[in-house]
């Protein structure tokens, strides 16, 4: 048998100029990183440029000094109150989505009959989109919806409970659309934890509560922090459901809505940009706090496949 191996063309080319590749490798540069260039360009053009444009716009109001737009926003409680309104919606919604996902994902780690179907049912809301969810909420939770009808037929209440066109409508919408997202992330974090660890804890005398508290939870915590951040950002930029199932003039006038009104109803682009910057700053502060807490946790290997 012949021992000669046919060289594939790519291999032959590499063999010809090992010099450049090695010189780059010595400097810690992998030539394949050049493949990232299109993606970097994309980010610069579609994110960095508009961001910087908006940033300078926020400091260039039509009237007044460079900070006039920020002054206008913070001095008007109707405007600055939107920060609190948005936080009051996004923080609890993100928290509930993360907390509700944990026990469900925990039960669904292993493989069992019907797991795929159950996952689909849990994930479907993410595919429906906000508008369809809002419509469903109006039909179901509205004053003449099934929920109130049933409660009234049972005689539990005399007047319909108001659950849409106010804070609760938007809150439910955020929970419904945000849950699948948090659930899928947490499920993947959980399956990254080696199940043998819990078995080991069991042979050491830990019951299921102790196993969860001392083994699973500490290993999952960094994942929970990340999931919370992403779920929060998703909820914080709420816009359609605040209009459709909320009370956009009052208790659910969120930051995104305020920015929209500044830009397209008052045509004050500088103020709109300033609001967008405030929005970004608040998000960064919340994420910063969570990540600061996360950095104090164990974030190494969790022994599993993830």
């Amino acid at each position: 048998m012949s021992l000669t191996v046919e060289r594939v063309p790519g291999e032959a080319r590499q063999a010809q100029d090992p010099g450049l590749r090695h010189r780059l490798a010595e400097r810690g540069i992998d030539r394949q990183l050049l493949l990232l260039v299109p993606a970097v360009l994309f980010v610069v053009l579609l994110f960095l440029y508009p961001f910087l444009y908006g940033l300078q716009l926020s400091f260039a109001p039509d009237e007044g000094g460079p900070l006039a737009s920020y002054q206008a926003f913070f001095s008007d409680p109707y405007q600055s109150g939107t920060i609190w309104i948005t936080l009051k919606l996004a923080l609890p919604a993100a928290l509930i989505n993360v907390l509700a996902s944990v026990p469900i994902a925990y039960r669904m780690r292993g493989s069992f009959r019907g797991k795929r179907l159950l996952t689909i049912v849990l994930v479907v809301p993410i595919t429906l989109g906000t508008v369809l969810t809002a419509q469903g909420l109006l039909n179901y939770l509205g004053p003449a919806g099934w929920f109130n009808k049933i409660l009234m037929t049972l005689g539990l209440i005399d007047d319909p409970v108001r659950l849409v066109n106010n804070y609760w409508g938007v809150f439910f919408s955020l929970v419904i659309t945000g849950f699948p997202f948090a659930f899928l992330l947490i499920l993947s974090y959980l399956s990254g934890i080696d199940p043998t660890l819990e078995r080991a804890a069991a042979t050491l005398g830990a019951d299921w509560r102790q196993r969860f508290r001392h083994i699973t939870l500490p290993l999952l915590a960094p994942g929970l922090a990340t999931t919370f951040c992403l779920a929060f950002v998703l909820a914080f930029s709420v816009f359609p459901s605040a209009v459709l199932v909320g009370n956009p003039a009052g208790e659910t006038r969120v930051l995104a809505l305020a920015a929209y009104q500044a830009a397209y109803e008052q045509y004050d682009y500088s103020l709109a940009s300033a609001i967008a910057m405030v929005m970004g700053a608040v998000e960064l502060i919340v994420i910063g706090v969570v990540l600061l807490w996360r950095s104090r946790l164990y974030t190494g290997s969790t022994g599993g496949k993830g």
Partner: protein
Amino acid sequence: MTEGAFTELRLDGVGRRFAGKDALVDLDLTIRAGEFIALLGPSGCGKSTALNCLAGLLPLTAGSIWQQGPDGERRIDTLPPEKRGFGMVFQSYALFPHMSVRRNISFGLQMRRLARAEVARRTTEAIRLVQLEEHADKLPGQLSGGQQQRVAIARAVVLEPSLVLMDEPLSNLDAKLRLEMRSEIRRLHQSLGLTTVYVTHDQEEALSLADRLVVLRQGRVQQIGTSEELHTRPANWHVADFMGFRNIVEVDATHVDGTDVVVQGEGLRLRGTATAPTAVGDRVVAAVRPEDVLVGAGTDGADGPNATPATVEVVGYQGRELAVEVRTAAGRALHLRTEQRLAPGDAVTLTVDPERLLVYPLAAGEHVPAPLVAAVP
């Protein structure tokens, strides 16, 4: 902790099925306190299943497990793992990656809500036992494989469990470390007197460690015995095959005189010792260890028992000895070990003491698999 101490642990017809397939069938075994038992077999033989059933990590689908203590017999297969009080060492070690060595080892003591001072004292003692004093505050990820293994062992024995279960604990270590840890485990067993059930697929490891071995194949017990019994008298040809009888030949019995048998097949005519009643004409298996095949060069030794001419084909250096593969005139490959310096192409005459050539019955329809490498033309 001596609350779960037992004088005897009895497995009574233990079985486990997975999705309609038997992984373990009808395992009867009595483990006496202080004993070191090895469950031995090729992968998929059910040895790990048996261990997990004992630990309570897998529910049984048949049978029961009983613990004979000072206050009578108690059924334990219905208890969850955390209530059994057995220690377990996992193949992957399963150290808690977010806890220091000290916290890993003290975890079990803390779960038992022992006094803080006692937890600290026993943990320190266990760390000293496995010689990890200077690594006590490191995370498992910062330790070498051997050190992790020692943490896993310390974590299991610090509770002074009535039974320690070990699931192939050495299989992830390199050869040198494996030998060191092997004697370490034996030393721990001797000094602490811990009853141990040890799962392995390495027959050498099992023979050197255990007081008694349980050989499993396809979920069924093949033989239970001491190392000596298994080494010299395997119960059937499957066990012989697994215990290092590398020369296994399917032949016919042509002469039977009590246990003295003559067999013929594959161009060989051999005298051996029957392990079970055999009749002339029976299809049987002749098994012999490589170290029991003796070599006379050329035609010397042609008068020896079972003299068979052969040609050396492959020679592997093993230090004092050579591992040699020869081929008979009829084309049958045989393995032997010798201190003679043979080279490929040498003509040799093989002899085998009939006492060392064991003849096993072959079940109807059963066949010895053909050797892996066919003759080179």
